[in-house]
């Protein structure tokens, strides 16, 4: 089942950069879809379209559709707050809010109107367990989040996006600053999470792409070059340019 359908999406930033050109793509529910390709390919731009975070940047022109559960989320009438609760995001650099560990997690829920202490505590524990962080922080939930290590902060950011029980999770190079052990923890958390969520991941390496992808999309300078199942795309790519990139001939 396709959770998200992207139809002929193009986007141009106000400085003239054409970051996406006619991208069409279906994203499967309960799977990890990987967007990969060289720098500047438009991967982050696409992610930021999916939760309308590009509303904050200066976009000159955009066209096309993004249907999530059949609803075009690029429609100006869409409730973006509700959209962002449904489509969670984890950024490349872990940005913890200048609050305690607990407050980082309850932030989104409280904004959504949840006041009940029991519910909040439950959500904190559940999301920390999902992000494989619970055991490490359970005794110091009220410490400042900034005191955590980089790897822990990134898992806190993952947990924070899970608290709201989104349906889709966007991850933009979530392990780029992490050591192999932390990276492994995040990757295995993702494999667990895909049972319940639709996951779109921009990996920080081709190896990670190959390890995690159920489906993979190769982006080059704003264009979708090739899309397919991870297994076949990384072993027998159809496009020459995909093959060159995967085998390290450029990028």
């Amino acid at each position: 089942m396709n959770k998200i359908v992207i139809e002929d999406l193009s986007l141009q930033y106000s400085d003239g950069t054409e970051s996406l050109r006619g991208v069409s793509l279906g994203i499967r529910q309960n799977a990890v879809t990987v967007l990969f390709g060289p720098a500047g390919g438009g991967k982050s731009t696409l992610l930021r379209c999916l939760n309308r975070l590009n509303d904050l940047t200066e976009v000159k022109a955009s066209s096309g559709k993004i249907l999530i559960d059949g609803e075009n989320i690029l429609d100006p009438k869409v409730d973006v707050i509700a959209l962002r609760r449904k489509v969670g995001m984890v950024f490349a650099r872990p940005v913890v809010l200048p609050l305690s560990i607990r407050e980082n997690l309850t932030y989104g829920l409280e904004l959504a109107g949840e006041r009940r202490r029991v519910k909040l505590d439950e959500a904190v524990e559940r999301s920390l367990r999902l992000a494989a962080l619970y055991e490490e922080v359970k005794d110091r939930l009220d410490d400042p989040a900034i005191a955590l290590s980089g790897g822990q902060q990134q898992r806190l950011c993952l947990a924070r996006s899970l608290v709201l029980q989104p349906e889709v999770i966007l991850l933009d190079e979530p392990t780029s600053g992490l050591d192999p052990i932390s990276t492994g923890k995040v990757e295995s958390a993702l494999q667990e999470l895909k049972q319940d969520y639709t996951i779109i991941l921009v990996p920080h390496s081709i190896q990670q792409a190959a390890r995690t992808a159920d489906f993979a999309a190769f982006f080059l300078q704003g264009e979708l070059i090739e899309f397919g199942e991870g297994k076949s795309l990384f072993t027998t790519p159809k496009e020459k340019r995909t093959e060159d990139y995967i085998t390290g001939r450029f990028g």
Partner: protein
Amino acid sequence: MKHLLARNRHLVQRIGFTSITMMAFATVFPIVATVIYILIKGGPAISLEFLTGFPHDGMRAGGILPAIIGTVYLTLGTAVFSVPLGIAAAIYLSEYAADTPLTRTIRIAIINLAGIPSVVYGLFGLGLFVLFLNFGTSILAASLTLSIMTLPVIISTAEESLRAVPQAFRTVSISLGATRWQTIQRIVLKEALPGILTGVILGLERAAGETAPILFTGAAFFLPRLPGSPFDATMALPYHLFVISTQVPEMPIKIQYGTALVLLVFVLTMNLIATIIRSRARAKRQW
């Protein structure tokens, strides 16, 4: 030869350091000297009666209570108008206004406002608040005048503190379903608060010490009682100091320095509070 050069360089560096250190002392020296001088000359005047009594014998004896209270009123009055307005303006400029010719003009205007001589503000206040709006010579008119003078300081320091809050916090907050305003309230303002407070205090401190803006708008030469409403004129420390230093013949020097000392302590205390807030915040900062 090489050896000589190296030694030479060493010497040059020593001379450089020494002269920089001396210059630093040279800037601090007048301030310290002034404070000590006023402390020595004014200290003996300070007594309970001086701080809590009314002036008498043509202000040549007694205390300066009405001037102290007046300065407190004027400072609070200034805060009432300038703090909310200044912070609101800063939030608008930093968080909402796009970078257009209009907002650029506003910014330049604010910067230039800070450079206008205070007596000009005084005349402006006289024209607008005292005469046109008919507030009369009053605490209200003087506070409004001081507010206008203080606003640029508050706006520009507050805007700077807001801008210093990392953009990533805003992005993350928005991505978690916050509105812009919720993001400002819960994250941005909280992080910028120490900086904003510092600016507020420095602005108010300047207002507390000014004579020219209140000269025509609210300051009284002498009042036998404390002001009873915002529409009354008031005595104030800086103006009182000016009066007893220039307008009253045979004024005891001790009282003049005593008044100066009280004003100085008032202003320096505010400064100290600002410094404490700033250094505490810096130690606690999480980014």
